[in-house]
């Protein structure tokens, strides 16, 4: 009897890129629902626009590059980029802003560098930073969360804000606010202390017992999704753990030194994009360091840079820049953190 030949090993685990990406999407769902709950329709609009633009530009680029379109679209990587970008952008961002960010993420940051697996920078963060630098005003305007200052606008208002020019700048200003992190930084730079902001008659409402209203829920649910991903073996635990521990250590140190001007560690870990970054953005394997020790340094580096930009930088949140800066450092980290090979007396550096 004749048989087919093949090369060992013949056994295969059933995990594949597609299932990994889908699990990332599943893990994002609870946090996104919380975000929708607190920030309204804009979150869904962002998701819809980002997903359609990302998938369309992915298909277009694959066609231009003469690569098979279907398998690459199915791998889910563009979908993950789209979701991360949509959840990071302000909920009432105009449609073109989301579209530009998505287009840039897929076309420039991903495909011009060679597509999945070859991009040195996290595509979602590149897209985010491009619009952050280009349209700084739009990027700081968040809707107030549910239950604050009238809450988020109705569906028709949201459609008008996102897709049309149906609303004046004054009206827009009236229904939008900066994020708690951004407000705190602005006021602390004006030599006010945290207590002043928290009891302010306009902004005070934005703050809950720990952090901004709603943000502890959103971050808590991202944390839960992230822990599930670790348990599923989709992401490596080192980056999020090192990221969160470093952020806690740095913020705790400064807040103990100067309680009035530096927010607590709890505030920092449950504010803004912290958990989304820790479990979903920094863990993007393509652009992160791949060695065990390198990943620890990588996570810590992002935390340190993000904290610096959050407190002293000119942008509302520093995570995107922190991730991109550490992306640049990843090859170097890999080079100098090679683990000791079995039977080798010491690791080479």
């Amino acid at each position, binding site marked *: *009897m004749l048989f087919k030949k093949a090369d060992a*090993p013949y056994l295969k685990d059933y995990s594949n890129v597609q299932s990994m990406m889908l699990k990332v999407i599943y893990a994002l769902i609870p946090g996104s629902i919380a975000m929708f709950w607190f920030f309204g329709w804009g979150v869904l609009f962002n998701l819809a626009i980002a997903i359609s633009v990302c998938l369309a530009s992915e298909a277009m680029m694959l066609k231009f590059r003469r690569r098979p379109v279907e398998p690459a679209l199915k791998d889910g990587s563009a979908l993950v980029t789209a979701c991360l970008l949509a959840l990071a952008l302000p909920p009432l961002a105009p449609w073109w802003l989301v579209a530009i960010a998505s287009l840039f993420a897929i076309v420039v940051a991903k495909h011009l560098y060679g597509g999945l697996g070859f991009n040195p920078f996290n595509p979602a963060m590149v897209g985010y930073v491009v619009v952050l630098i280009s349209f700084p005003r739009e990027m700081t305007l968040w809707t107030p969360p549910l239950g604050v200052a009238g809450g988020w606008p109705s569906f028709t208002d949201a459609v008008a804000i996102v897709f049309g020019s149906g609303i004046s700048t004054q009206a827009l200003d009236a229904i939008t606010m900066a994020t708690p992190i951004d407000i705190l930084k602005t006021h602390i730079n004006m030599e006010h202390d945290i207590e002043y902001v928290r009891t302010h008659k306009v902004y005070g409402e934005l703050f809950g017992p720990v952090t901004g209203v709603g943000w502890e829920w959103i971050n808590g649910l991202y944390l839960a999704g992230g822990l599930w991903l670790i348990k599923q073996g989709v992401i490596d635990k080192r980056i999020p753990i090192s990221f969160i521990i470093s952020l806690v250590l740095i913020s705790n140190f400064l807040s103990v030194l100067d309680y009035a001007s530096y927010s607590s560690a709890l505030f920092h870990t449950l504010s803004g994009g912290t958990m989304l970054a820790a479990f979903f953005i920094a863990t993007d394997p393509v652009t992160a360091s791949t060695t065990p020790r390198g990943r620890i340094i990588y996570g810590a580096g992002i935390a340190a840079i993000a904290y610096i930009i959050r407190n002293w930088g000119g942008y509302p949140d520093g995570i995107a820049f922190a991730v991109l800066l550490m992306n640049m450092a990843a090859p170097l980290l890999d080079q100098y953190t090679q683990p000791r090979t079995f*039977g080798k007396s010491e690791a080479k550096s």
Partner: protein
Amino acid sequence: MLSRDKTWVGNDNGEHSFHGGIKLPGHKDLSTQSPIADMPACDVYTVPLNQHIGAEGEILVKAGDHVLKGQMLARPHGMVSAAIHSPVSGEIIEISNHRFPHPSGLAAPCFVIKNDHKDEWIERNPVGDDYAQLGSHELRGLIRDAGIVGLGGAGFPAAVKQTEVGITTLIINGVECEPYISCDDMLMREHADEIIAGAKIIAQIIKAENCVIAIEDNKPQAIDAVSKAINDDDSGFIELQVVPTIYPSGGERQLIKIITGMEVPMNGLPADIHVLCHNVATSYAIYNAIYHAIPLISRIVTITGHGVQSPQNINTAIGTPIKDCIEFCGGYRDDARALIMGGPMMGLTLDTDELPVIKTSNCLLVTTPEDMALPASKSHMPCIRCGKCVDVCPANLLPQQLYWYSADRDYDRAINLNLFGCIECGCCDYVCPSDIPLVQYFRHAKSGIWEQERERKKSDIARQRHENRQARQDKQKQEREERLRKKREALAKGKDSHKLELDKKKALIADALARVKEKKAKQPVKPKNTENLTEEQLEKIAEADRRRKKLKKERGDQDAV
């Protein structure tokens, strides 16, 4: 069926464990339901001359010879070599090239033996318990002449490893970590006493201080049998160690780490850290050689997989056609897809069953789509650097980086990342979500590097030759120039002396002339025939003399001017 759960584990790098490894579905039950069966005799056996690592033996028989069972057909030749014996009595039909299970798939010399079904043994003189009186060298000689090689799969001649210098620990490997294979498990269940006896022989040869038999914890019956045999053995020298079921804990380096906590140096051997490792089947073969004078002419083979009607372990002669073994186990099922010699992680696919069982055939696995889907296409997803391969690599390498450089043929970097620490266990391949055939890339890179190395050596030799030639030519040129220079010098010197001589001669001539002149001056020339001349004649002479005088005077004037 494979479990769809997360099957890989990232192991901690503790002292008595190794980094990484994976939990694999075992499928061992498939072939352990019945005791080891004896494969009935066949008519024709094909025994390859080289079934081991090392040099081919020296052939002792020729076509047409009648041979006895256990008769040596080829004698070990050189340091690393193994003897080959006839598995049956009968006639050598031919010694010619045939294909046998080998990665190259090429044909090589084989003894084709026709069984006369008389089962006539060669005369045997077992050493038995008297081996204790023999020295290491003699015992090694017996093992070498019995053609015993590592039966775990590598096929390295056993006696060569059994150095008696500086080995303290003997490890008998009964781990058998690859899925499906159960020949060592069954052997331990049924022949534990013989394995212990074999281990004691090896221990005596190498003068080991302690001996550990290692078994994976998924073989409770084998563990029971071996621990009973150890208890029955009164030496108290051998201990049993149960190791966790994590692939590849049966790999020599990994097992040594688990047992001793020490790592075999990457480019070294177990002997470098005073350890010797033998498979349980090798130990059993050594027992047979010493106690029964039976050379290695048969082995236990696991016939398994869902593609076989009744999977089981069989004791079969070396050289038996694989086809007959499968037939003995009920034949193929309709959905049989692939035939693998060895396990599903490191085994070798065979394209036909018309090949013989050889010394290293521990398992013949007939797979169906239910067992595994053979990697169908060459295309795979790009590496997303997820690092699962890093987590499972038992050699603690960075497979994703190695893949990058191997695919790029950037061999220097691959070597820097210790490509040669890779044991090709396939763990990285197994977990890779992009289905990248990593081990294939690494194998290619390794052979590419060897090729480069050979080329470099060749070009080194050529360059050396060229340089030598250059040096030789330079030397010749120098010598020639030296010679020329000397000659020129000699010539120049020669010219001077010539001149001197010439001057001397001139001087002599001048002297002589001067003397003649002087003489002439003293004795004026007297003209001859001047007597008896007439007046007229005298007148003429006088006139000539006058003219001569006059001329002389004129010439003298001219000379003066």
